[in-house]
């Protein structure tokens, strides 16, 4: 039986707050019948407002869900409610034989998983490879052309001066960004667009804009020579341009690491176009980042919740500083993986210096440290035993929760460290991890 879930971990799966609330109501045993479980799954019939009850199945290891209700949210409140019920009263979902409607879905999943492990051979391997190579070559040329244009544009920006650019406004930045999108370099386009937003924003904008332009210029100079560079840096440049590594390519070529991975924190950002979720794992003495994207109306693929342990193999995307990974394979092992080893503040600054040496464009680092929250006016900082501190960049609710958990004593804290400061995602005052 896989390690039982806690209610907190189940609720972390909810796509939004109203789903979490609805899930509680659906965890009332009174609306469920035909409940059962196996080693890998839960199932039940949920009485909704219609005549026929909804058939709900949960495949636990991932987890994956199936429900016959018409809800567009994923996972739906019935699936969440079933998991909540199981988390709080496992006895109510006794072991048994899966009924037909649940078994057929579960078996289908098992079949498809087996198929993925042995991918079908392509029709004509030579032809397919040739076509792929042609596409890549075309794209490469477009990117190089786009970079040449960017090179000239940056030179012009500096010749005419940033003050001049501020007067002319953001529009030229947007136009350059659009041309980079056409050149199939979306990563660069994003940078140029963000530079446009820096124009005139805040008292330090000229220094920020210059630094951004300078790093972009570095990219523009380095990319045409990327074949000459070491593997890690080459991969980094390609990813900064916006080349994505396909899943097959990754699973075939990326570094594989097997072990027990503790999820230490999850952050989720949403704007009107996109939802991005970063899931941070610690295992085998290193960090891993699972990155998931979805359109706001679509479900995000399943990933571990803060505190959970994932047993299996990760495939790391090639990079100057390998961090981003995908789950290649999951084991059914149980058992909690250890919490990250915590650094001092000085140690974290040293790590950042080393990271920058390997990848000057890095803008977000995982940071685990043992520190005490210290309040300085409106802002908070995390100070270690040597009285050195990192500034906290987070909503006041997060900082207050952290202060309450710490009680003026040092605690283990994990967060994302960017130029603005550290954003705490979780803390462990004792051995128990609390998501913030």
């Amino acid at each position, binding site marked *: 039986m896989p390690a039982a879930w806690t209610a907190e971990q189940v609720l972390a799966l909810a796509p939004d707050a109203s789903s979490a609330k609805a899930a509680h109501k659906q965890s009332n045993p009174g609306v469920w019948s035909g409940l059962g479980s196996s080693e890998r799954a839960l199932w039940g019939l949920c009485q909704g407002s219609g005549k026929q009850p909804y058939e709900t199945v949960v495949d636990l290891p991932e987890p994956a869900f199936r429900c016959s209700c018409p809800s567009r949210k994923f996972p739906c409140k019935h699936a969440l409610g079933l998991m909540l019920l199981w988390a709080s009263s496992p006895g109510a979902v006794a072991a048994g034989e899966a009924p037909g409607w649940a078994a057929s879905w579960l078996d289908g999943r098992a079949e498809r998983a087996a198929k993925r492990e042995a991918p079908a051979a392509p029709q004509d391997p030579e032809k397919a490879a040739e076509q792929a190579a042609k596409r890549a070559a075309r794209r490469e040329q477009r990117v190089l052309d786009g970079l040449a244009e960017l090179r000239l544009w940056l030179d012009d920006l500096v010749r005419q001066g940033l003050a001049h650019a501020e007067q002319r406004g953001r529009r030229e930045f947007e136009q350059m960004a659009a041309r980079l999108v056409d050149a199939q370099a979306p990563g660069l386009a994003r940078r140029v667009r963000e530079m446009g937003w820096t124009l005139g924003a805040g008292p330090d904008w000229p220094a920020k804009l210059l630094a951004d332009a300078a790093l972009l210029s*570095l990219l523009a100079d380095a990319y045409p020579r990327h074949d000459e560079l070491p593997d890690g840096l080459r991969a980094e440049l390609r990813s900064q341009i916006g080349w994505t590594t396909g899943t097959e390519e990754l699973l075939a070529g990326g570094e594989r690491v097997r072990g027990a991975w503790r999820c230490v924190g999850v952050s989720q950002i949403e704007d009107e176009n996109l939802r991005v979720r970063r899931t941070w794992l610690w295992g085998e003495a290193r960090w891993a980042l699972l990155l998931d994207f979805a359109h706001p109306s679509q479900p995000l693929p399943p990933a571990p919740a803060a505190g959970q342990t994932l047993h299996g193999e990760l495939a790391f995307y090639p990079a100057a500083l390998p961090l981003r990974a995908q789950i290649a394979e999951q084991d059914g092992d149980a058992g909690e993986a250890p919490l990250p080893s915590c650094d001092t503040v000085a140690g974290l600054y040293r790590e950042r210096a080393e990271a920058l040496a390997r990848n000057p464009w890095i803008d977000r680092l995982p940071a685990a440290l043992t520190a005490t929250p210290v309040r300085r006016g409106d802002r908070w900082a995390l100070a270690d035993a040597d009285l050195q501190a990192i500034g906290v960049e987070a909503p006041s609710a997060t900082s207050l929760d952290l202060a309450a958990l710490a009680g003026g004593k040092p605690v283990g804290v994990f967060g994302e460290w960017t130029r603005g400061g550290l954003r705490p995602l979780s803390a462990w005052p004792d051995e128990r991890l609390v998501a913030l």
Partner: protein
Amino acid sequence: MSLEALTQAALLGTARNAPPEVELPEALATEEAAPERRLLRDAALLAVMGEAGELPDRVAALPDPAPDESRPPCPPAAAQHLRAILRGPYEDALPEWLNALAKTGAVVPPEALRELLDRQWLAPRLERVMSERGRWLAAQHDEWEWAAGGDPAERFETGGRDVRLHVLRTLRADDPAAARELLASTWGQDNARDRETFLAALATRLGPDDEPFLETCLEDRGQGVRAQAAALLSAIPGSALSRRMAERLGPLIGTRLRTLTVELPDEDAGEDWMTARPPSGMGKRAWVLWQIVAAAPLGVWERVDRDPAKLLSRRIADGMGDLLDSAWAEAAARQRDTSWATALLDRGYAVRELIAVAPQAGERLLAGGLDTGLLDALPTPWSRAFSETVAKQLSGDHPPVHLAHALGAHGDPAIADRLAGATHPHVRDAAALIAFRRTMLSTLEETR
């Protein structure tokens, strides 16, 4: 050489001004000829070097840690329920949860402190389960001043109005005499509004020891304070004021066969603390009578009937019925007289304060015609019988949403199974809430 100088040059543009020379280690020396290229390259190097070379911030000192807890922590299962209450659809269960936690002697979990401290309207209940950690945290944030611990006397002297009231109420529940003395200590400097508000706090654990102070309040400059003091004195059995009222009232009461007669007193038969101007529609002497009846011990009426139910069933002469009902209700509420409150409620006299004094009679009255406006006067949880009555009312096609919600939030959790099979969404919500309350209460019961 700093990024600042390069930034200045970049602002102006290299077309007009040559960028400054930047001295760099030999390994990083560049052959770039064009000034804009040189500037960008130097800027990139300095930016990355600057960030990599950044030194950590320092703090002067670490904060004083929170004191250790002297009371047991909240059980983890109960903490999960609290999270469901604060983040889920069960917020109505929060006051009940806090009460149940208080009975176990435990304190609230640290991760819930911020959300609980923000709910100042629950201050009296939160006070009983506040942890040392919570007080420590509250002391550092002005908006949570009410929860910061400390010497009550000092806080009462220097705090804002909200804090003072909270401190006084909390102290009064613990040590009534100390609270009264604290109130007396600033009495002279407080304004009339504060005096009136704070005086009301003495209603908790009221006793004969409060009489001397309250007697001095009968001569206060503020009319509201005088009236408040008189109301409190009339609730202390055997107080001088209540004896005087009994003496005045006695001679006015009579019977003519089965009819109750009450004479009007003289216009000047009142006392200084009474309001002179009657409410509109009432004569001056009638108003004096009302105030006397409201302040006199209900025992005076025993000379007519020992049982208030019998008394209330009598005919009342001269159309005084309404006036007397109103005054009796006031007296019963102040004196917390269960048998009078019961008798009045049984005769259909529906008043919130009486329901609080005699909940059983209140339930009987409300069951007869469910006026949802008064349901919240009943203490939570309702009796099992009343809960069943309300549950029956919800079995139709259009169960009233407020009734369903009230049952979910205040009904006896023992009837939870009765609602389990409900189909209407309002009732299903109520069923979920009451089932949750049952679970949360049994978890806390287990840890007592």
